[in-house]
């Protein structure tokens, strides 16, 4: 491991991570920055859990952008298996080559006098068809083969089958995979691995043990304001404060799906497009569907809009 170290740009400190991510427009809380810093220092994958839309996937993108690394993404779904995640033999190519090389094979084997000798000769180049040439690398293998290292994002791991987790274990702990015909492929530079999960099912202990576990919840008001500021540059400070205050009120309601950061940003963009200077009842009611994704949620929120808007406006007065 020691010889890889010089290739890494060492991270100076947690603050450096924070400002680095901020340069990509990702405002990280202290905990997130600590996780990224530690993942780099002790070479561990990060397992990120949290509700949808709080920036789990964005985190991987931000790290890749900031460190100038390639990002390789593996989207998990039910039924994802080795052939789609790790590698696959190029069957068609193998077939084609055997067809084309038929004559050549005949020539080579023609010299052999006995069946036994032919078999021996065949053994000599038998491995040709199971060489690197014919391996189709899928995301996981690609990630290991990047000469400069990369950010590997394994998205929504909870959607995959339990067996798939076991497949990941070797990669996550040793940054290597075993291909029966080729042997073990180890990473030239260990990739930064981010796994995300929506907690749809409980992940296995073996997987969790190999990762740093980061839980991203809804951000605090101040942090969310900064996020909106960085993502929606055109928005006035007044509107920003009111908007975030309003959303924090909405999150206290008992809703099917609470609005998360991505909805906040969408809503802020909408309000900027509508050239709003501050929150108004009518405007909020008209654009509530940007924020809430279920009809029942919208209905549950409508009666509270007046109070929440008043709250948000008042909040603005006292800063």
């Amino acid at each position, binding site marked *: 491991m020691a010889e890889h170290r010089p290739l890494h740009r060492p991270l100076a400190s*947690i603050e450096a991570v924070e400002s680095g991510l901020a340069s990509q427009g990702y405002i990280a809380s*202290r*905990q997130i920055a*600590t*996780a990224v*810093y*530690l993942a780099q*220092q*002790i070479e*561990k994958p990060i*397992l990120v*859990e949290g509700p949808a839309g709080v920036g789990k996937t964005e985190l991987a993108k931000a790290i890749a952008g900031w460190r100038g690394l390639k990002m390789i993404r593996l989207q998990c779904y*039910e039924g994802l298996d080795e052939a789609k995640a790790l590698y696959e033999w190029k*069957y*068609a190519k193998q*077939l084609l080559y055997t067809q084309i090389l038929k004559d050549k094979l005949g020539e080579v084997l023609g010299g052999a006098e006995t069946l036994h000798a032919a078999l021996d000769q065949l053994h000599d180049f038998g491995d040709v068809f199971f060489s690197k040439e014919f391996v189709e690398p899928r995301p996981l293998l690609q990630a290991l083969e990047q000469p400069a290292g990369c950010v590997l994002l394994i998205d929504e791991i909870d959607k995959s*089958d*339990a067996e798939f987790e076991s497949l990941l274990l070797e990669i996550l702990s040793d940054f290597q995979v075993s291909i029966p015909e080729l042997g073990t492929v180890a990473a030239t530079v260990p990739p930064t691995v981010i796994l995300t999960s929506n907690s749809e*099912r*409980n992940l296995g*202990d073996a997987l*969790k*043990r190999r990762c*740093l*576990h*980061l*839980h991203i919840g809804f951000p605090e008001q101040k942090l969310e304001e900064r996020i909106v500021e960085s993502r929606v540059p055109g928005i006035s400070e007044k509107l920003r404060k009111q908007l975030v205050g309003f959303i924090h009120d909405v999150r206290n309601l008992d809703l099917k799906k609470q609005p998360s950061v991505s909805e906040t940003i969408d809503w802020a963009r909408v309000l900027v497009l509508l050239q709003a200077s501050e929150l108004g009842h009518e405007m909020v009611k008209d654009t509530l569907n940007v924020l809430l994704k279920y009809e029942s949620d919208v209905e549950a929120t409508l009666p509270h809009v007046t109070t929440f808007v008043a709250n948000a406006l008042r909040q603005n007065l006292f800063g």
Partner: protein
Amino acid sequence: MKENLHRFFRAARGAGVRVSPAESIDAMRAVAEVGLSDRTILRDTFLLTLAKSEDEKKALGDCFDLFFAAPELSQPSAANDPSEAATQDNAPGIQSSSGEPTENLGPLAEMLLSQDRAEIAAAVANASSAASLSDIRYFTQRGLFSTRVLEAMGIARLRDDLDELTASNPALAERLQAATEALRENVREAVSQALLLYGREEAENLRNEILRNAPLSRIEPRQIEQMRALIRQIARRLRERYSKPRKRQRRGHLDVRRTIRRNAAWGGVPFLTAWKRRKRDRPKIVALCDVSGSVARVSDFFLLLIHSLHEVVSDVRSFAFSGHLIEVSEILESKTAEEAMAEIMSKVGFGSSDYGGSFADFERQWMESVTPQTTVIVLGDARSNNLDPGADILRRISERSKRLVWLNPEGRMTWGWGDSEMPRYQTFCNVVRQCATARQLERAVSDIVATYQ
């Protein structure tokens, strides 16, 4: 520092966070990277490396705060009375004026008289590790460990000193007496804190172990809440065990259609084979619960358990009966456990049970809900008050269903005694079990779910 980290890991385990050796190694490497200077960063680091779920993060956060809370040392009471300045003046005064007796004093007595708080705290900490205080598990061990810590500090010598001083220098003896009391107080607090840190899990395990084996029908009202918590815990465990996707590859049967489709790219030459998969059913459960008299409590917990298994069972319909039978699924789904049980009781509870009549009610209205995939569970003591047992109806239910399971809170010995119709019912049941404690309840439900796997 390493020692301290190890003690913290032990405390974390005590708080219910599963810390494996590998994780503790990770945590130590991480701590080496971030250093110990910033407390919030240290806390984040532990949360990242050790806790692997939201619950664990919360537990570990609390544990961290408790562990690294600077132990609040109550000052020796002598120092409380006069102002700080006076104490400062007094301290050297004692040493000079009573120079001769001090020389005979043991180190502990001197330390107490010098009123150096930091030194005393350090001494308590040292003595605690000498007495292996972190091994404390139960609250009954508090006295034992306090004594051990005090002995490690040299309380025996202190007592001798105290006796001598009472004779030679009563004023100083009084001061020392007060300081000793304060020291005892300190040690007691240190022990209580240690118990809080290291003993929590054991205490909880012990309590749960007792609860698990206690007869459900006779638990005390104050334990009902704890029992509910235990039942929820059991439900969670069953969910985790059985909610994995129920798909199993059945090698040996080729799925011809899927194979041809998958290999279309290379002219139908079958490079990749597809095998038939069998999807497993989730259990469908119809539960008939006797809610009369002593069986009511068991039914209560049983219904709570069955209805918290949403991820594992696809369909549960529950019925409660004593004199007659009603469906209670909706009540259980829409209300909290307490309210639901109260409502069920007000509707059918506390009558004398009539099994025959109740089975007849079920056959008349809900017989079609029993399909060949359904497991029917009857929970009751089979005491039919010498009324018609309705065994023929039970036979028809048994024939329609996949399995018929009877759970009886009474011991096997009493089956068939008095008005118990158990032997007659038993012939139509696939499984008959005694089910009086939480442990037996867990077993029974676990077996029912497992037959579908």
